[in-house]
């Protein structure tokens, strides 16, 4: 999973990091472009179109044609794509074709919600996964290791909605936490944390296992290194050996897996949104796909892709700056 790490040219100083960021951002834009083409193409291939969805079966050929004309669906696909692209490049993502609301409005509130939930879950999951991973590596092959591993595996082998239902059964029906999230403009931060606890916990259970296993593996992978043996021969305690000597060198794979999971928390949580009635981007995208509302599909897909690209970039930058070999030239 650390394939993303690129060695920085032959320089290796801060300027090279900037150069890498520049290059990756360029690649990121290219990625976004490819994605917009893929999504547009796929949505084009879907049976039915927005006009049909809006009109239903009552549509007569005339009304259908009229609506298509109104919506600009009659233009050939490449032209429509081009129009969308040029507008998007000018920062205008247009209006939802279905309900005429500006996409920026439609998306912004939900993007905030999605990011809030992702960060909330990450704030729970990342420390938990790292601590468990470190402890599992420290007490490898012990009962703690096996139990943590089994629990983690079990938690990821249940479908998300199932985990969510069980949490609702245990924690919501007894009245401890609300079973659904109702965010209004007046909701305080504390109340928001409280309301979103169950979805965040569900996501935590879903992503912790992966990060924990990778952390453990990355650390154990290093334990055979001579410098680890050296640290032990310097009389360092096992915990210190792991925290001070192994973890700093295991950062790259750990950062990468954390980034991957953060990306998942932003882009892959439709289910949790549905079960906890959480107004996030995922549901918006699914609705838009169902309605063939291409402008919205594109906007959300690009947000997701940007999140993915940016997180990967951040991971790579962090991997670089935390690696003295890449940061400090000979």
């Amino acid at each position, binding site marked *: 999973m650390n394939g993303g790490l690129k060695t920085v040219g032959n320089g290796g100083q801060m300027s090279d990091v900037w150069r890498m960021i520049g290059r990756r951002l360029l690649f990121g834009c290219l990625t976004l472009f490819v994605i917009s083409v893929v999504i547009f193409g*796929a*949505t084009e291939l879907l049976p039915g179109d927005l006009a049909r969805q809006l009109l239903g079966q009552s549509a007569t050929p005339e009304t259908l044609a009229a609506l298509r004309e109104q919506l600009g669906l009659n233009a050939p696909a490449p032209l429509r794509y081009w129009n969308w692209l040029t507008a998007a490049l000018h920062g205008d993502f247009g209006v939802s074709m279905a309900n005429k609301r500006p996409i920026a409005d439609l998306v912004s509130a939900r993007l905030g919600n999605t990011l809030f939930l992702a960060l909330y879950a990450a704030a729970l999951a990342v420390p938990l996964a790292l601590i468990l991973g470190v402890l599992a590596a420290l007490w490898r092959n012990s009962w703690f290791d*096996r139990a943590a591993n*089994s629990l983690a*595996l079990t938690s990821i*082998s249940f479908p998300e909605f*199932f985990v969510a239902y069980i949490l609702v059964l245990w924690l919501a029906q007894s009245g401890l936490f609300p079973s659904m999230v109702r965010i209004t403009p007046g909701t305080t931060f504390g109340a928001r944390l409280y309301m979103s606890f169950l979805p965040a916990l569900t996501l935590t259970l879903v992503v912790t296992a992966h990060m924990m296993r990778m952390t453990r593996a990355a650390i154990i992978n290093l334990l055979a290194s001579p410098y680890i043996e050296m640290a032990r021969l310097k009389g360092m305690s096992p915990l210190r050996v792991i925290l001070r000597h192994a973890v700093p060198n295991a950062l790259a794979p750990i950062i990468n897996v954390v980034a991957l999971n953060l990306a998942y928390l932003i882009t892959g949580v439709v289910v949790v949104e549905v079960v906890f009635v959480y107004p996030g981007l995922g549901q918006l*995208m699914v609705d838009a796909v169902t309605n063939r509302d291409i402008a919205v599909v594109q906007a959300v897909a690009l947000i997701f*892709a940007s999140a993915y690209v940016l997180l990967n970039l951040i991971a790579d930058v962090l991997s670089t700056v935390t690696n003295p070999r890449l940061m400090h030239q000979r």
Partner: protein
Amino acid sequence: MKVLLVVIAAVAFALALGWVFRAAAWRLAPKRHTLVFRDMPLTAAFGMAVILIYVVVALFAPVLAPFAEREVVGGQYLPWAAPYLLGTDNLGRDMLTRLIYGARNTVGIAFATTALAFVVGSILGIWAAVLGGWADQALSRFVDALMAIPALIFSLLLLTIFGTSITTLILVIAAVDATRVYRLARSVAQGIVVMDYIEAARLRGEGMWRLIRREILPNAMAPLVAEFGLRFCFVFLAISALSFLGLGIKPPTADWGSMVRENATLITFGDVTPLLPAGAIALLTVAVNFVVDWQLHRASGLKE
């Protein structure tokens, strides 16, 4: 408290199963494998026992199941009592029978999907690593782009476009999964292509196919196998998720993912029925990963 007792009982049972399996395997295995089995940890023994049981159940489903796969035998949600040992489902079909057939269908499809994803993903990944240069860059950027599209939504798009036969289902999930395998295989292979024996093979004038098949793939197996364990489990989840969309395995074929979905609402009332198929998936996942962990441990030269 009750939950704790159940957990303790389950762990005890699992250990006992593992122990019995290990003892049996150790005595029954051919001579040169005896040692391997004798020193295998109980977790791995338990995992192998579970996998073996699943395989047997899958193979002999028609013999083991008390009723026919789709037969409606009585009322809905009958309690756990003979002749319906695990009760009946929402249509009055025998739950035990459905579970047994589910093993056959779900495991078979999940295995086929994962295997396909691995064949495609790892060959392409290794190929890109060997080739390097712009071809690698182009392919990798493209795969990156695909990975940036949320998997579920991408599967939904593809399945809606291409239909939902079992073959398309396998192909689509495998395609989406293959991107993840590609990434792993490429990074593993990048570590291998710098080895002298790869240089030697290139200098010898070996073709690409042999480089991949004989020189790199065998050496990349360990991390790929580890990933296989997790991917296998993700495929179950993907099928289960797609069953929601009406895109999963078609009824009346028994399939755990769909069974979880069909009965999921009941968990709200603390009913255990939906736990059965979900538990079956979880048990298999844990078992597979136990065995994978053990194999990795062995492959890593018992360094720990």
